[in-house]
Every structure is written in C-alpha cells, then in structure tokens.
C-alpha cells in the first residue's frame, strides 16, 4: 500500500492510458478529492506532509516507450517508464539520457521530471530542464495538454515544459515526455585525487574544473574517515588521457563507482543548493562529523543522516548565500516543524496565481509543494 508521510489514500488507481488517467483525475477533482501522483516512489519523501490524500494516481501503468529515433537523437516515453528501461532501449544505438539520479534504480521518467532530481552528470549536461523537449500533462479538469514537441529545437508557443519540470506534479500529472538524447561518449575514464584534506580537495576540484576539457561529473564525497574527490572524464581517448595526465589523479578503485554512487539514499536527506562560489562556505557550516556528498562545480551538497537540531543553521546559511536547502526526505514530524522547502521565493504570489489557474480546486498534492 502506498503511503505518503504515513498517510494512506482512500483509493488507488493505476490507469493504462493517458486518457484514462486524465479521467480519474478530473473525476476526483470534481468530487473535491485530493490526488497525489505516484511514480516509482523513489522520491516520495519530498515535500511537506500532504494536507489530504484521497486518491493515489499511480503512473506505472503508462509504461510504453512511444518512440525512439536514434538518427534524430530523440525519444518519447510515457511517464511510468523507468529510467533504466529507457536507457536500455537507447543503449542499443549507443545513446543515452544523461541523467543519473540518486536513490536509483527505479525512478520513473514522470517522477524524475516532477521532482527535478538529477545526479553527478549535471555538471556537463545540466538537468533534464535543458534536454526535455516536449510534454503531455493531464490537468485537473481532465484535459490533456501538450507543450513543446518531438523535435530538438522548438519555440512554438510558451515553454510550459519548464513550468511543469520540478513542480512536483502540482500543476498537472505528466503522462508523456520527449527528450533530446545524446550519443554515448567515445571514451570514458574515472579518476580520484589521493586522500585529500578538505582544503586540498577544493584546490584540486578547482584544477579539475578549470581544465580545457572539464570532467562530465565531479563529486566530493565525505566518508566517515576521509574525503574522496572523484572525476569522470568523457570524450575522445587522446583528449581524456591528456586531461587525466594533467590532473595526476589515480584511477578510481571501484569499477562501478558511479553506479554505487547513484544508489545513495537516506531517510534524512537535505539538498543544499547555492551559487557554486558559495558552496565551500556552506560545507564549512556543516557539522564536523556530517556525512554528505557534493557537486563542487554545480553548487549542490546532499547532506544525510543529520540531527534535526542541526538543520536550521545550515538552511539559514544556504539561504543567506542566495540558495536553498530542501528536505528530500525526513520524518514527517520534522518536515512539519521545519518545512520541506525553506524560505519562500519573492515571486511566490505569481507562482500561486499560476497554480490556481491550473488547479483551482487544489486537487493536486495539496500542502506538499511550496506553491
């Protein structure tokens, strides 16, 4: 049985088509019910505890890979397709979606887009915001609305893709998505700086990021007894080898480092995101024994297994630095106490007006999102 923050829904629906899903949604909306869309359930810890929960609208019945077009470097999938299923299909033509979210495997595409979760590869490719080219979304009134298209370049109409990306399903339920996909790099190598102290690690990270071909992923990981700084390079073989030589780091120990890394998850999990220049200071504000991993080039640190009392200070530091600290997972009581999202953005009124325009009855995930 699905629960969100311990709350059980009165009903669960698992529609097989977008139309059916839109139908369930509008019916619930008309009945004044509260609906929470559920994908792979990997990121359900996100958001404030829901105010109400009547219907769990499970998207995993929408499990079709609609179209993969390797020569066009595009793919269209239904929202319930898992990232792994899509990658397997794309892999047949040596292509991939450059997305490696934490708490893998098992994310659905719809869930990933709604939560805007991503992983280390965002250093090079950005988040799906940058390569999502089309969406179909079920709205609370039962309409299915498309934005964008299936081609890689498109300025026809408003870019509503961006509005739904990261909105935690608060404006509509994503039913289908189209992406620009990427060729697999010709050559890859992962290297690691040798046992750096934290200050050395910053210097080394800077060196890596300033290379003429910066790494596609760069992770600084705090383990109980040490820091690790790991870089993933991709490109032409000669080029990658030169970068690795210039850096003088050693090959990483684990053959499956990135896969292991993407499995990281926690029941107490804070994502701190600040302008990259401010990350170092924020990390210094974390308790000495904290356990975390960070993307130094992006400005994000994932802090896990914290003590409740420690959060407020770190959040304040992040917000003062012009960033945010969002709870990706935490006990409901703690989320209720601290708020999952932190300080409200200055444009909250505009956002609320947009939310009301899409979901006037407050059907979708009431109370969970910050808007």
């Amino acid at each position, binding site marked *: 049985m699905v629960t969100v923050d311990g709350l059980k829904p009165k009903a669960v629906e698992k529609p097989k088509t977008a139309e059916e899903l839109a139908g369930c949604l509008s019916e619930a909306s008309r009945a004044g019910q509260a609906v929470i869309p559920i994908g792979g359930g990997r990121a359900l810890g996100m958001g404030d505890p829901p105010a109400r929960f009547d219907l769990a609208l499970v998207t995993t019945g929408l499990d079709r890979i609609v179209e993969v*077009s390797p*020569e*066009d*470097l*595009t793919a269209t999938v239904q929202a319930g397709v898992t990232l792994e299923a899509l990658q397997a299909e794309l892999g047949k033509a*040596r*292509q991939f979606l450059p997305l490696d979210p934490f708490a893998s495997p098992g994310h659905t595409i719809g869930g990933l887009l709604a939560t*805007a979760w991503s992983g280390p590869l*965002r250093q090079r490719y950005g988040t799906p*915001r*940058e390569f999502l080219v089309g969406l179909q*979304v079920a709205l609370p009134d039962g*309409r*299915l*609305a*498309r934005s964008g*298209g*299936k*081609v*890689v*370049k*498109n*300025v*026809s*109409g*408003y*870019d*509503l*893709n*961006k*509005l739904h*990306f990261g909105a935690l399903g608060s404006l509509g339920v994503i039913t289908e998505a189209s992406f620009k996909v990427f*060729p697999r790099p*010709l050559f890859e190598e992962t290297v690691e700086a040798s046992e750096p102290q934290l200050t050395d690690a910053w210097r080394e990270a800077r060196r890596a990021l300033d290379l*003429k*071909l910066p790494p596609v992923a760069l992770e600084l990981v705090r383990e109980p007894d040490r820091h690790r700084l790991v870089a993933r390079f991709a*490109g*032409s073989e000669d*080029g990658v080898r*030169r*970068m690795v030589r210039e850096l003088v780091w050693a090959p990483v120990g684990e053959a499956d480092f990135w896969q292991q890394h993407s499995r990281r998850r926690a029941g107490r999990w804070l994502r701190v*995101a600040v*302008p990259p220049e401010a990350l170092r200071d924020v990390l210094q504000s974390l308790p000495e024994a904290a356990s975390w991993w960070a993307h130094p080039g992006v*400005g994000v640190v994932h802090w896990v297994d914290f003590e409740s009392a420690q959060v407020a200070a770190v959040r304040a530091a992040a917000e003062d*630095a012009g960033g*945010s600290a969002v709870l990706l997972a935490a006990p409901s009581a703690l989320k209720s106490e601290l708020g999952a*999202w*932190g300080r*409200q*953005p*200055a*444009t*909250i009124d*505009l*956002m609320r007006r*947009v*939310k009301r*325009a899409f979901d006037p009855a407050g059907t979708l995930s009431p109370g969970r999102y*910050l*808007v």
Partner: protein
Amino acid sequence: MGLGPRTLEKLCRAVGRDHVVWDAYDLVIFERDASIAGALPDAIVYPANVEEVAAVLEIAAEQQLPVVPRGAGTGLSGGAVTLRGGLALSLARLRRIIEIDPKRRTALVEPGVVNYDLGLEAARHGLFYAPDPSSQKACTIGGNAAENSGGPHCLYYGVTTNHILGMEVVLSDGSVHWVGGEDPDRPGLDLLGLLVGSEGTLAVTTKLLVKLLPTPEAVSTLMAAFPSIESASKAVSDVIGHGIVPAALEMMDKVTIGAVEAHYKAGYPTSAGAVLLVEVDGLTESARELTAAIEQILETDDAFEIRVAEDPAERELLWAGRKGAIGALGHIKPNYYLHDGVVPRTKLPEVLRDVGRIGEHYRLPVANVFHAGDGNLHPNILFDLREKGIMKKVEKAGEEMLRACIDAGGTLSGEHGIGLEKNAFMPWIFGPDDLAAMQAVKDVLDPSGRLNPGKIFPPAGQIEPKLIARSGVASEARWW
C-alpha cells in the same frame, strides 16, 4: 487612433520629452521589424532604466494601452510589430554590460546590449556567450531571450534558454520581479524558463544574468561541397548517426551559394548542389580526431570537395558567407520571406524536396540556408514586391512549406518565434486544450492582454497587418 495630450504628457514626464516620439512621420520607423508585416504604433517610448520602464507600463495600464517591447527590430515573425497600435517600448537605451564576472563565468547585462558586443567583451576574459544568431551584429540580448533565439553553434551548445540564469522583468501592471538566479535547484515554479521565449507577451525584460563559457582550446572548420541537397542531407544524418555532435552543422543550397559567392567570395564551389559548413571545437586532439572522422563520413557520402580552414582568417571567411547569406540573396531578388520550420533530421531530404516543388509550383526562387544539424529549415522565398499580386503567392508558398514540415512530424518555428506570422497556424500543432493551458498562463501574467497583443495565439477575429515585405539589398547587406 493617436494618444491624448494628457497621456503624452505623462509619458514625457516619465522618460523625458526627448524620449517620446509621436510625430506621424517618425512613427514609420517603428512600423515593422525584419518580417513582412507592419503596423504603426501611436507612440514610441525610450525609457533609460527599469524605473522608467515600470513607469511607462503603469501609464499604459492606466490608459489601457497596448505595449510592444522592442529590441533591435531584427525579429522575423513580426514580434515587435505594434499590431494594435499603442506604445512601442524600445529597450535600446538600456544598453549597459553591467558586469562580467570571469570567475563565476557570468555576465549581467541590460536587454538592449547587442549580442555581438557581449561576445567581444566576454572574449577579453577568454570567455564567450554561446547563442549566436546570424543577426548577432544587430540583435539584442533582450530580443534573443524573448525569442529564445538559436544560431549555428546551438547544435552543440544549446539555445538561448539554456544560457540564461536569471532576469529582471516588469509585468504589464508595472510590477518589477527577479526570476531565476545563480543557484541551482531553486524551489518554486520555473518562471524564468516560462518567460524566455514568450515573445514579449508576458513581461518586459530589463536585466539578464547570462552564462559565459571558456573559449575552447581548438576550433576546426570544414567546408564540404556536395552534388545535391539529398547527398548533403544524408551526410548530416550520417555524421549525427555516428555519434558525433559537432559545434555547428550548417547547409546552404545552390541558390544561396551563388549569391554568397558573388558577394563574399567565401570559397564555396559554385558547381555544388549544396555546401555543408561543419565546425568542431574542444581539445586539440579531439578536434583533430573528430575532423578526420567527419571528413571520412562526408567523403563516403559523395562530398566532391572538402576544405578545412587553415587559419582564423579562412574560418572567418567561411562563416562570413554563411552569416551574411540572407543579405547576399538581395542579388537575386530585392525582397525575401524567410521561414523557420523544424523537422526530425532524418526527414530533411524529403521536406527539402517538397520545399523545392512548392517553389517551382509558384514560380518563386527559394534559397535554403539553415541549421541542418538541428533539422531547422530556413526556406527563403525570394521575390520582387513590385510584381503585382506577388504577396499572395509568396504567402501561400510559405504556408505550404510549413505544412510540409508539420506533416513530417516537425514544428512551426525553431528559433524565429510565432509572432503574428504563424499564429494562425498554431492549431496545426496544438489542440484547443494545449492552447488553453498557454492562455491560462497569459491570463495570469497579463490579465488585460495588453502586452504584445495579437501574437502567438491564433487570432480570434482577423486583423490584417499591412504586408510590406523586406528588402534584402537595402537593409541586411548593410549589417555585414
């Protein structure tokens, strides 16, 4: 309709007497952009800063006047045309590069800054601003953001929306807001992403924080000549199919090559049916390796001449031909009508065949010069406005070409925007429910619908803009 003296008085007080224009003769200057449509504003205002922009919008709100923001007026879909009169709001005086931060690799600029000028300034720090529309020597960063403009190098680097971190915007009620920012994963709805590409219909941009990138270590530019458009199109598909995404991959057809050579002597073989310009950048060894791989693919695909630029001067010349192509077409006919459809790359040969057929059917010369790597077509219909009744034919041909793109699974516009030129075709790709969702957003941000009215959404009643047509010789040639 004309504005009352009290309104003019208020506008003058807001931005200074010298910065309001309402003389009928002067208004003609802002009658149009680079598209084929035109309509007169009632007044042109030139605010100098965000406070003045807000003041103008407040006055417009009070008087219920339409407001159309305007950058350099190089838009190709009628975006800056004051279709319903009202105020043309020029951002030309907001032209400061406020700050370039080489460490953070960002620039904070005002919207009237010309794309090329930002590039020059960034270059002093070893950085560059990636989106490079061919009009970059004239168009503004604000206009680029409003259209979500692309350019040759957007194949690899992405389009404008991928390079804007934040914006200061003024809504039609005169309120000022910051959207976006330098921090990743901002909680809340992505208003920035929504506003970029909204064609001045949702907000007026008054500041932009943009990303800059370090200039690559090596650049390699290659020109390849093919017997036909088909063979060149196949080569495009094959390059991408090999897992190579070059920085740029551009195509020009025979008509374009002839015009360009007459004007620029860029070195494109005039016997070719099509020419590809391919650029790769990155590390020295990668550029070398990729260039070799691409050369091999192009040869197998029947390229009969391949030339790799030996030095920056030769590279510049190869690009000058491409970037100045549209102006050069003035050698063939004085006017042009440029379309901007996108198709899946694999559909290029068949859609280009259709485009050729349509041109022949209407006896109109068509020049193709476009972003082939993205499947972004630019069929350019050439004509002479002095020929009686020609506009109807030109429009009809353009419409049929767009239809061919849609039938091939493509879209109406890849980078020039919908504006008032293609809004009537929006129902081809979006159903009523899709458009209603977009309208809902419009109603939230501009409830009285006064910001750039008559654009993007299919017209309810028909308002015919005055078709004026663009002269290639007179205007574009001058930019280059």
